[in-house]
């Protein structure tokens, strides 16, 4: 049996029985579900209110056609996406750190390194194991969220919605693997165990919280609730004309956001789930065309993190950092 798979299998078994893993994933699942369930309940209320309005119109003999509300069911997943964006990344770091730190702390790393295994078996097994874990977590959260949207929200879900959801789930998986692999690499490179975790948390703080927050704060649409231009009833062409006067400012804002892998993940999921209004009801081909650069950078960042983890966790590096 391939030693990479042997390590991955052991990792899955160890994590499945670990209390910390159960607590982290349980917390993430509960937070996501509460958020989706609350949004679904609100969706159902809006739907019921509209149906009641239509019924009342019919009862009163009115022939006026009531305008249907613009309700897009996948928008209900916004809270879940935001939890994955922040908490998911944090938990991915904790699991990635834990998987290496435990081996170093328990002394099992020495046992592993004294075995006739390949150069990348340790890193490969660890990252493969954690990737399978995150695939399972994302699949379970997606499935449960979908059930909540349908059962609590009574939202009409179509085949295209499931496809969008699966694409967004794929991006969520890539995003979580990125953070896990980064933490694996940083912990392997650190002689002192805490250093790897601290560095990973500083990167998380900068790229998940601070940079996206600065970008959001600089966005004119976030200056007043509902958006600055919408509140002032400025039409889109005029908005673009105004923004053209501030192209340098907008370039800096966009550049800041584009430097954060979190913002790439957010833009991708918000587009494919229709959370961002401009992508609602748009065909998938149009979304792919608009989102391809973000998809490429997220995939490239994840691949780079996996390669970093593999190179940082070779026998030679681990031996050097142990001695």
């Amino acid at each position, binding site marked *: 049996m391939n030693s990479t798979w*042997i390590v991955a299998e052991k990792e899955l078994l160890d994590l499945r029985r670990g209390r910390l893993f159960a607590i982290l994933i349980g917390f993430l699942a509960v937070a996501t579900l509460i958020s989706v369930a609350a949004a679904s309940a609100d969706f159902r209320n809006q739907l019921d209110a509209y149906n009641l309005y239509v019924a009342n119109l019919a009862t009163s003999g009115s022939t006026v056609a009531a305008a249907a509300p613009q309700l897009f069911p996948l928008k209900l997943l916004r809270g879940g996406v935001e939890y994955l964006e922040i908490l998911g990344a944090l938990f991915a770091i904790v699991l990635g750190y834990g998987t290496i730190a435990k081996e170093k702390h328990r002394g099992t790393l020495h046992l592993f390194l004294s075995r006739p295994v390949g150069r990348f078996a340790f890193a490969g097994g660890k990252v493969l194991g954690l990737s399978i874990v995150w695939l399972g977590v994302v699949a379970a959260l997606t499935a449960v969220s979908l059930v909540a949207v349908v059962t609590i929200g009574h939202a009409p879900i179509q085949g295209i919605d499931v496809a969008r959801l699966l694409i967004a789930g794929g991006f969520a998986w890539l995003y979580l693997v990125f953070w896990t692999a980064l933490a694996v690499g940083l912990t392997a490179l650190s002689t002192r165990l805490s250093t790897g975790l601290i560095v990973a948390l500083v990167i998380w703080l900068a790229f998940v919280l601070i940079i996206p927050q600065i970008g959001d704060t600089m966005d004119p649409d976030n200056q007043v609730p509902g958006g600055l231009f919408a509140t002032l009833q400025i039409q889109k062409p005029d908005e673009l004309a105004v923004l053209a006067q501030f192209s340098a400012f907008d370039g800096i804002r966009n550049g800041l956001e584009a430097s954060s892998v979190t913002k790439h993940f957010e833009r991708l999921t918000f587009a494919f789930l229709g959370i961002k209004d401009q992508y609602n009801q748009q065909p998938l081909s149009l979304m792919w065309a608009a989102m391809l650069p973000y998809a490429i950078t997220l995939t490239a960042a994840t691949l780079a993190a996996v390669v970093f983890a593999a190179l940082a966790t070779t026998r030679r590096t681990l031996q050097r950092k142990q001695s």
Partner: protein
Amino acid sequence: MTTSAISTAALTRSFGAHQALSDLTLDVPQGEVFGLLGHNGAGKTTTVNLLTTLLEPTAGDAMINGHSVKTDAAGVRQSIGYLPENVQFYDNLTLLENLRFFARLSGLRRPDARIRDVLTFLDFTGHDNQRVGTFSKGMRQRVGIAQAVLHAPAVLFLDEPTSGLDPEGVRTLRETIVRLNHEFGMTIFMNTHLLSEVTKTCTSIGILNHGRLVHHDSMSNTLAAFPADESLEDIYFQLDSAAV
């Protein structure tokens, strides 16, 4: 003619300006139980780490069962079993799952029969499905020995194997080492602080002092070179202090 299981030639390891091991030249014939003695920081663990390929030598080389630690580290790893000091294993996994993991890493495809044989040999049956996290120090040490001998290595390295064990655990471990050596002809290289254990277990000894080998001989020759009423402890201190 006996061939060497372990043979080192001017093996040296430095950490920056500090030379942890200097020019170690040593031969341990097959079937020996070799005890490496020395005070804390003398270079014992560095020596084991070099011989088990966990460290790369700064200079010199070592051959383990005919494989060079510098040019054929994979061959060395195939030939050795290793028990580090105070290793803890995977607490969430059962005894069987822990041993399966290490057996598969050592290339055993269907290890269960071999695991049962080893556990029977160690008189450690009835705990297969118990999580290792619930084991006492003595039980963990037996897990350590089991994982080290699963693939029937030619040479077994033990780093302070009696560290933290109670007297009963020490005796059990000593008996196990002797049986492994007698029944399977396994060459055993161990670091230890317990001089009494060395007398009862080892066929030859070496003494390290500040990274230099100051004594290497068979146990019988070492004891014969000193008055009969002197204990190994007295002999050790005389040899160690003479080297300073």
